C-alpha cells in the first residue's frame, strides 16, 4: 500500500512508531521459542540457578537423553512414515476429486454438496471423532499401529486437499487440457501432463498444509496409539510431561525437536505457506 505524502517529520515519526510496535510484536512472538531453546541447552544445575537469557554452559546432554532413554528415534520415524504415506495418499485421491468438482456439473447438485461437505469435515473438532474411531479401530485390531494412523490421517487430509485443489484447478483454463485431449491424451494423461504442472504452486501449498496438520496432530495419535512403536512426535513430547518429577531439560529439548521440522519448513517455503494456513478462506 503506498503512502500519501504528509509532512516529512510526522511521517518519519509515524514510521518509527510502526517499526517499534512491530519489533515488540515480533519479540512477543519469538521470545518464547528462545526460552525453550535456551532451557534445552542448559545443564540441570543452570536451569535452576535463576533467569539466564543465554546458556552459561552449552550442553547437548538433554538431546542425547531424549534419543537414548526417551525413544525419540522411534517417535520421529513413526511421524515421518505416517506423514509421508498419508499425505501422499490424500493428495492423490483428493486431487482427482477436486478435478472432478472443478470440471463437471453433477446431478442433483452433488458437486456443491460434496464441496461444502468436505469443508465441514475439516472443521469438526478432533475430540468428536476420536472416541468412535477408538472403538472402531479396537474392533479391527488397528489400535497402536502406524497403519491405523495412516488410514485416518489420509481420510481427514483428503477434505482439505479437495477444498483447496478445487479452487486452484478452477483457475486453470479448460482450453489447455482440451487441446491436449485433441492431440490424443486421455483425460487423466492430460491432467497429469498439462494441468498439474500449471497447478503446481497450489499443489505445493496444499501439501505443505497437509504435512503440517498431520505432523502436528495430537489428539488422534494420543488416543489411538499407546507405545513408542506407533506413537508420533507430539505424543512423545507429551509423555515427558506426565512424569511426576518433571525433567525440564529433556522436556525443552523435546519441544525443540517437535517444533524444528515445521519451523525449518516454514522458513524455506514461506511464500507458499500463507494460502495453506488460511484454509483457503481468502483467495
Amino acid at each position: 500500500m503506498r503512502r500519501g505524502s504528509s509532512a516529512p517529520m510526522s511521517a518519519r515519526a509515524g514510521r518509527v512508531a510502526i517499526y517499534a510496535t512491530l519489533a515488540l510484536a515480533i519479540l512477543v512472538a519469538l521470545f518464547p521459542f528462545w526460552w525453550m531453546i535456551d532451557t534445552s541447552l542448559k545443564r540441570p544445575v543452570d536451569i535452576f540457578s535463576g533467569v539466564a537469557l543465554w546458556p552459561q554452559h552449552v550442553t547437548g546432554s538433554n538431546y542425547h537423553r531424549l534419543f537414548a532413554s526417551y525413544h525419540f528415534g522411534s517417535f520421529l520415524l513413526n511421524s515421518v512414515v505416517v506423514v509421508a504415506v498419508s499425505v501422499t495418499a490424500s493428495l492423490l485421491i483428493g486431487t482427482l476429486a477436486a478435478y472432478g468438482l472443478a470440471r463437471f456439473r453433477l446431478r442433483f447438485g452433488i458437486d456443491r454438496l460434496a464441496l461444502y461437505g468436505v469443508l465441514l469435515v475439516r472443521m469438526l473438532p478432533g475430540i468428536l471423532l476420536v472416541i468412535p474411531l477408538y472403538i472402531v479401530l479396537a474392533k479391527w485390531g488397528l489400535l497402536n499401529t502406524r497403519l491405523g494412523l495412516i488410514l485416518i490421517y489420509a481420510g481427514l487430509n483428503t477434505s482439505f486437499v479437495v477444498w483447496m485443489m478445487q479452487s486452484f484447478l478452477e483457475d486453470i483454463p479448460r482450453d489447455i487440457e482440451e487441446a491436449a485431449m485433441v492431440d490424443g491424451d486421455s483425460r487423466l494423461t492430460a491432467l497429469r501432463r498439462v494441468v498439474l504442472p500449471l497447478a503446481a504452486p497450489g499443489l505445493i501449498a496444499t501439501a505443505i498444509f497437509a504435512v503440517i496438520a498431520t505432523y502436528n496432530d495430537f489428539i488422534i495419535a494420543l488416543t489411538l496409539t499407546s507405545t513408542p512403536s506407533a506413537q508420533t512426535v507430539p505424543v512423545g513430547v507429551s509423555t515427558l510431561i506426565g512424569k511426576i518429577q518433571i525433567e525440564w531439560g529433556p522436556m525443552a529439548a523435546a519441544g525443540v525437536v517437535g517444533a524444528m521440522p515445521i519451523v525449518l519448513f516454514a522458513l524455506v517455503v514461506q511464500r507458499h505457506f500463507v494460502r495453506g494456513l488460511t484454509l483457503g478462506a481468502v483467495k
Partner: protein
Amino acid sequence: MAVAEPAVAEDAGRAWRLRGAATPYLLLAPALLALAAVSLYPIFYGIRASFHRYRYGIDMGSAGTQNYVNVYHDPVFWQAVKTTAKFVVIAVSIETLLGLALALLVARELRFASWIRVSLILPMTIAPVVVGVIWRLLFASDIGIVNPLFSWFGLAQPNVLAHGTSAFLGLVAVDTWEWTPLIFLILLAGLHSMPQDPLEAAQVDGAGRVQAFFHHTLPLLKPVLLVAIVLRTIDAVGTFDQVFVLTKGGPGTSTQLISIYSYNTAFLFTQYGQAMAMLIALLACLLLLMAAAVRFMRRTSEAVA
C-alpha cells in the same frame, strides 16, 4: 487406471456434462469414500454410542436417552460449558482486535516485509503440544520467566498455573499467542485484495485516517473478518492439546473445557456413551456456526476472486 473417454472438444458447457457421464463420479468416489469412512461413519457410530450404555468400555446395550438425561443433570458438564464459552469469547475477541491491528500495521510497504510476516506467524505453525511445552517452561514457578518478570515490575509473583483464575487467564494468553497470527494472516490477505483507490484518496491526516478506516476499510473488510472470526471460534471450541499439556483442566475444574471433560469421561472413566452424548450436543451447536462459516466463505471467495 485410465478412464476411457473420447477426446472431443466441442463448445464447453453442455458437452462436458454429457460425455463420459461416469467420469466425474469415478473421480470423486475414492475421496468421498475415504472421507465418509473417517467422518460420517464415526459420527453415526458416535450417535449410536450416545444411546448405549458402556461399562468398563464394553457395550452393555441400549440405554435410551439415559446418557443425555445424565449429561443434562450433570453440574460438572454445565460448568465445562460455561468455561468453554468464556474461554472462546474472551480469547477470540482479543485475537480479533490484535490480529486486525497487526494486519493494518503490516499491510503497507515495509522493509523485511516477508521476514516480519513469517516471524509473526511462527507460533501458529508449530504443534499445539509444543506450544503447551513452551508455556509450561515460561509459567513454571521454579525455572520459568513469568514470575521473575512480575517481580521485576514490582508485582506479586502470580504462579500462573497454581490458581484457578490465573490458570484460566494463562490459557487465554497462550491461545492469543498461538492464534492471533491466524486472524492476522486472513485479514492481511483480505487487505491486500482490496481496491486501493478509495484508501489512497482518503489518506490524509490522523483524524482523516481513522475516519477512512471506519468508512472504507472496515466495511470492505467485513466479509473476510466474519470468516476469520467464525473459523477461529469453531477451532477454539475444540481446543484440547494445549490445555491437556498445561493444566489437564485443573487446578480443580477451573480450566476444564468440554473437550477435556469428554476426553476424561471417555478415556479415564470409559463412559463412552456419556462422553458421546456431550459431544453430540456440542456438535448440534457447532453445526450452526459451521453452516455460517460455509456461507461466509462461499461469499468471500466469490467476492474476492
